[in-house]
């Protein structure tokens, strides 16, 4: 029993059966397929033993949004219990092809990104194509798939001319989405960091492994994380902060991979301790009076949704804190638990509608705002919001770059 398993076993004894988690769970609120975090977490855990068949497969309907952990008054690690329980199911029953595929965001991105992207994007907008994808693979025909980019972020960065005045360095973890689908998010981050006097380094990296973890493929997730740690540890050892724009990637490097996959080497810990979400990083600069505040006013009122995976960092609301420094900009918080997509969850044919129902409160709020733009830190959430509401969405770093008046 590793120390995480021990702490999980002990933490389930902290459960006092108050049902606060189940009352807050956005998935249990909309479907009976998931009986709620208390049942599949601390209660079912007592029936899970090595060498014994899995007592209940409903844990597969946990979206991994971690709202249960957030509201638990006694500190039970419910989401971690669920992630491990799902892996036990995968270990017993194997990984379906669809889950194998959606868990490999990097591979899919690499194949679809490039000059052929427009053609592929066009193809994936065709109803019959999506119908076939649903029938053959099980990705829901309406689920929001991102449009591939014609160039990768890394290719752009290689040609990018950095200012020569930098005093300090950061290492940028772009993740799969920025590299293959949304290079503009990475460009905005680089512009903001350089504007604040940083030289941005681009370590070798691969998928953070989160989609693999949430689909229960722990073997592949472990090799992804080990490769990333190997590539990042020298930066962390030199005290160069590793900064990312994808809140789920940074959470995975900080906590999910070490905790859920039980990886605890010194290198893993050093990388975890040296990784920051970009707004966490910018907020700490602001707290030390080191963030530039030469903002142009942005007279806008925008809806903002903090992704569940960002709240799971347990840092409050760093993007709100930093954007509140921009004169004129007013953000309205969604106060919604989750958008429903939860990475790859809402793409799946049998879970698409659950995801849409989970996100209904958020979609209502975005539509009611009357805004033509919504802000959200996580890529899959942005795609889900735009899919469900028709309202365009941006990463908050893009607004910050705009406020600085930076050319992208």
């Amino acid at each position, binding site marked *: 029993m590793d120390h995480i398993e021990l702490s999980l076993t002990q933490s389930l004894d902290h459960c006092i059966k108050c049902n*606060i988690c189940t009352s807050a769970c956005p998935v249990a*609120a909309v479907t009976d397929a998931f009986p709620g975090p208390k049942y599949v977490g601390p209660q079912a855990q007592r029936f899970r033993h090595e060498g014994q068949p899995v007592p209940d497969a409903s844990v597969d309907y946990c979206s991994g949004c971690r709202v249960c952990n957030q*509201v638990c008054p006694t500190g039970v690690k419910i989401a971690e219990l669920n992630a491990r329980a799902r892996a036990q199911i995968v270990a017993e029953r194997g990984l379906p092809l669809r889950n194998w595929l959606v868990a490999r965001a990097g591979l899919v991105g690499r194949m679809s990104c490039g000059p052929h992207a427009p053609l592929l994007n066009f193809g994936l907008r065709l109803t019959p194509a999506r119908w076939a994808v649903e029938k053959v693979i099980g990705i829901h025909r309406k689920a929001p798939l991102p449009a591939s980019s014609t160039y990768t972020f890394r290719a752009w960065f290689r040609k990018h001319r950095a200012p020569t005045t930098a005093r300090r360095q950061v290492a940028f973890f772009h993740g799969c989405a920025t590299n293959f689908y949304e290079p503009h998010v990475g460009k905005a981050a680089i512009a903001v960091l350089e504007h604040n006097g940083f030289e941005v380094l681009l370590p070798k990296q691969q998928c953070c492994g989160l989609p693999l973890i949430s689909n229960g493929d722990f073997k592949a997730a472990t090799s992804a994380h080990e490769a990333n740690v190997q590539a990042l540890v020298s930066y962390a050892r030199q005290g160069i902060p590793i900064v990312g724009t994808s809140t789920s990637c940074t959470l995975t490097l900080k906590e999910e991979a070490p905790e859920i996959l039980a990886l605890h080497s010194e290198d893993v810990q050093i990388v975890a*301790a040296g990784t920051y979400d970009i707004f966490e990083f910018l907020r700490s600069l602001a707290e030390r009076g080191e963030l530039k505040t030469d903002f142009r006013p942005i007279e806008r009122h925008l809806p903002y949704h903090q992704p569940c995976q960002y709240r799971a960092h347990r840092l*409050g609301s760093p993007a709100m*804190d930093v954007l509140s420094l921009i004169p004129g900009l007013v953000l309205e918080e969604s106060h919604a638990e989750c958008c429903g997509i939860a990475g790859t969850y809402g793409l799946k044919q049998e879970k698409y509608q659950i995801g849409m129902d989970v996100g209904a409160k958020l979609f209502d709020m975005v539509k009611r705002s009357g805004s033509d733009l919504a802000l959200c830190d996580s890529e899959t959430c942005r795609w889900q919001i735009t899919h469900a509401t028709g309202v365009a969405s941006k990463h908050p770093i893009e607004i910050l770059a705009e406020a600085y008046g930076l050319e992208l």
Partner: protein
Amino acid sequence: MNYETIVIGAGLAGMMAALGRAERGERVMVLAKGHGSTHWAAGCLDLFAEADDPLGAINQLVQTRPAHPYALAGVAALEQALARVRGVAEAVGYPLVGNAGRNLLMPTALGALRPTAFVPATMVNGEARQLGDGRPTLIAGLHELRDFFPPLIAANLRAQGYAAEGVYLELPPVERAHDFSPVVVARLFERPAFRAALGRQLAALVRKGGYARIGLPAVLGLYNAVEVVRELQALSGALIFEIPTLPTSVPGMRLFHAFEQALTKAGARLQIGGWVLRGEGSNPHLHAVFSEAAAREQRHLARRWVLATGGVMGGGLRAEHTGVVNETALGLPVRTPSGRSDWFQARFLDEAGHPIFRAGIAVDAQLRPLDAADQIVYTNVAVVGSALADFDPIREGCLEGVALATGFAAGQL
């Protein structure tokens, strides 16, 4: 980021303090480990259960027990706090009714009668003096809803001389089949068709049994309960009242929601899931607190702090088997009986109560924490609610009253 006040704990005491400070124009954050005391409690306000006239009893108590939190906060703070909390609830269309000068007697989910001073308007028709008017009461529930047994409640009411009968209603057709926690059923009550179907069943029962009022589990909608009660009264032709259920408490969630709205309106921030592990300060100032976060602790800075983490139940105090009681967030000194053997009286139901239940943090008149020598530990910290020493919130039946009075006082200091 640069808060003037950070409140640790999101129960009634903490939210009341935060609201007070935010309404004075301060930048305020509430930092809490999770949802808690509101979601566990009945959603009523207990001021002092042992007397018919709680306010009168409290006026006497502050003379005889100067260390009691009521004495430190003052009766005026309690009265202002009550007005404020009623305003907060009223603002979301959820009035709290009652009288600080006379306790109500409300039926519990066991059919016992429990004294409390203020209840949501959705409960008040179940007050014992009304139940005793000679006309029959129906207690109704659903088989599917756990831990709520109408025949048991009715039998216990009858044993106390109230005419009552218990019945199970038939669950209207819903797509759900498995789990019927209080919150799930509360969400169903927000659907007009669900209410209408149950209303028809209740009307038929009223026609047959001539019931004057109907007690239902306190699950009549999450955010529009007053409307639901009004509608069910119109449909059934009887008065409706809610009876608190086991946790998760829907009336408690409504109260939390009301405060959440008020705090947001006042510009305060809430960080739920931020478990405070330690503080850093040098006497007499607390400079920072650190909360648990992914990969490393999060540091919080503020000028002023309110500790509202609760007692043993809320996690603010932790009793070790060694006989030591710790304050879990800042490591403040805790006043406890001197040794483990002095924790309890010899008799389980001793009328004086057990000394360990009065353990907590001793404070001065401005609610600042004191050490064993009565010296102030931090001048910029106020301690409120059940973390305080020298009272027994459950036995005295004053948990909400003390939370509100001390929370209000800390909001004005």
